């Protein structure tokens, strides 16, 4: 069978299916209507449901406020940020309005914010950001980071069903590059990590596009020295499946936490801290982290390739880890 569907197809199809199955679902975002969205994730959907696919003004704050109100009225809005980076304008509505609502009032606000995330060459500081960590820091939201076509599909459908705000971080680099035969997968629930590749010498815990870079690094080390690197795909970074991570570390004794975002805090620090707190005795070597550099994401492809983790830089870290 041919690799005929892509990660962005999965996002589009999942939205279509959610709308078919649940009349409460509607889509809101800039240019998502007739135009089908900056990345075509909503192509053709307004034609099918003219009333349920709505173009928004350039008002990210109001877009999320709108979604909170709509969710309170029983709807299940999916809001598309044109780029995750522009979610910064909606930061207050997300962390203070949507994410606090259930705890404050007991009334949940089921909404999904689609965040086209992550770096691509030439996109620069304002169209490349990974935002999972800032939304995970605040209580009240679920933050998912699908790395596969099947997860992009099934986790978006699951996100719509959750009663809480879900920050759905979709990676732009995977949009058209990542292909599959179809959307079928193991249908793991949100909150469960997956062993993407099993191994016994070290564990790489990662998520989103970095899962693929980790697998590449694992391939290199396999060929290089027969190392067997286990790759854990977190799938959702909040909640974060500590059990699966620790079970893997129990097998390998070595942990590398890998992420594409900025190096201060974030997912990798959370992973390392949890493992250390609960499974310190399982570690045969210091747990390591590889993140992007501590600067804005640069525009130039050469700088960009050095800024983010690559199979090469992951291998360097893994070799150190294995040599410990």
């Amino acid at each position, binding site marked *: 069978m041919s690799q005929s569907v892509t990660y962005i197809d999965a996002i589009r199809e999942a939205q279509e299916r959610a709308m078919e199955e649940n009349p409460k679902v509607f889509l809101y975002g800039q240019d998502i209507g007739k135009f089908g969205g900056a990345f075509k994730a909503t192509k053709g959907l307004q034609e099918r449901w003219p009333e349920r696919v709505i173009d928004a003004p350039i008002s990210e704050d109001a877009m999320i406020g709108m979604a909170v109100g709509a969710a309170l009225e029983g709807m299940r809005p999916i809001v598309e940020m044109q780029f995750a980076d522009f979610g910064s304008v909606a930061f207050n509505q997300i962390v203070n309005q949507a994410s606090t609502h259930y705890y404050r009032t007991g009334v949940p606000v089921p909404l999904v914010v689609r965040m086209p995330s992550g770096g691509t060459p030439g996109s620069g500081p304002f169209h490349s950001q990974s935002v999972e960590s800032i939304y995970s820091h605040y209580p009240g939201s679920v933050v998912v980071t699908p790395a596969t076509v099947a997860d992009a599909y099934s986790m978006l459908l699951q996100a719509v069903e959750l009663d809480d705000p879900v920050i759905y971080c979709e990676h732009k680099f995977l949009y058209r590059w990542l292909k599959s035969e179809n959307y079928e997968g193991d249908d793991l629930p949100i909150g469960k990590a997956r062993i993407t590749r099993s191994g016994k010498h070290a564990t790489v815990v990662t998520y989103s596009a970095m899962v693929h870079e980790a697998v590449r690094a694992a391939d290199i080390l396999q060929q290089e020295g027969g190392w067997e690197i286990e790759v854990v795909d977190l799938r959702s970074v909040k909640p*974060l499946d500590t059990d699966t991570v620790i079970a893997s570390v129990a097998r390998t004794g070595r942990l590398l936490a890998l992420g594409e975002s900025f190096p201060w805090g974030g997912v990798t620090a959370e992973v390392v801290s949890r493992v250390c707190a609960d499974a310190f005795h399982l570690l045969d070597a210091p747990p390591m982290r590889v993140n992007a550099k501590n600067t804005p994401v640069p525009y130039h492809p050469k700088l960009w390739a050095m800024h983010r983790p690559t199979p090469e830089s992951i291998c360097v870290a893994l070799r150190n880890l294995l040599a410990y």
Partner: protein
Amino acid sequence: MSEAFDPIIQHGAPTQEYVRRVMYAMLRGRIMETKLSNLYKAGKIVGGVYLGKGQEAVSASLGAALRMGHDVFAPLIRDQAGRMAFGEASLDATRTYLGSAQGPMRGRDGNIHRGRPDEGLYAMISHLGAAVSQVGGALLAKRIQGTLGDSVGATCVGDGATSTGAFHEGLNFVAVERLPMVVIIADNQYAYSTPNERQYACEDLVDRAKGYGVAGHSVDGTNVLECARVIGGAVAAARSGEGPQLVVAKLLRLGGHGEHDDGSYVEPELRQGHLGRDCIEVGKELLIQNGLLTAEQYDAWVQEISEECQEAVAVAQREEGPNPYSEDWSATSSLSLRGLK
């Protein structure tokens, strides 16, 4: 309008029944807030106390024009009267201020940060302007679901809140969607201590209506009959499909920003001038003059409301605060995720 609604405006004038309901709610707001202020001064309330003294005519005219469970209302800082007119129980106020576990916020949030979102009374977050888009979203949702009917959404903001990006984005969104929403700007001349000339540069905030493409109305916030006419009229207009309505009420906050603040920065000329009039006194006189109320009825109202508020305080005071040991420390509702962090 659906059958269940008695009209509040007839031939351009507020109905007697509506005006009386407004006045009654004004009194309820004032008496409740006086009690809250006393509790604060007696050290019985932890945290801030923010009163709507002087703004009751505006707030109650809005609340009394709406119906809980049918309309959506996002009150702000100074809307005790409007909340009560809308249908919020007095106990919701006292329980939230006094931190009772029985209150709608169960001690998790306090004072004015309360609501009954599933009955259309939204729980404010502090960030000014944030509710405009939220109410708009509720109305958009009703429209999509085909349940909009003659429902109306409403919120109040202050002069200061108009400077927020959230207010602008929200109002523009509501205008683009032509939603049946009423936004009241209670222009009380100050935002905390900041006078209007440091807040905006237009002559009158109602001049903004045209720029959003919404209907604009001005009203003297100290005159309940005018408030009922203009605000009731704006609600009726939104209800009957005339799109978003912006009402700018001019008035004065007759106190500090909160009970911790003496408001000494307010210009004495303003206090002594027209805007410094107490809308309750003015209202009492106007209603009596116009044969809508007798002095005896007024006194009876005061009596009745005082008892209601006293009782609401007493009940809340007898109740326990939340128990931190049995508190459900969950920020998400998804059961399957609760075990997970």
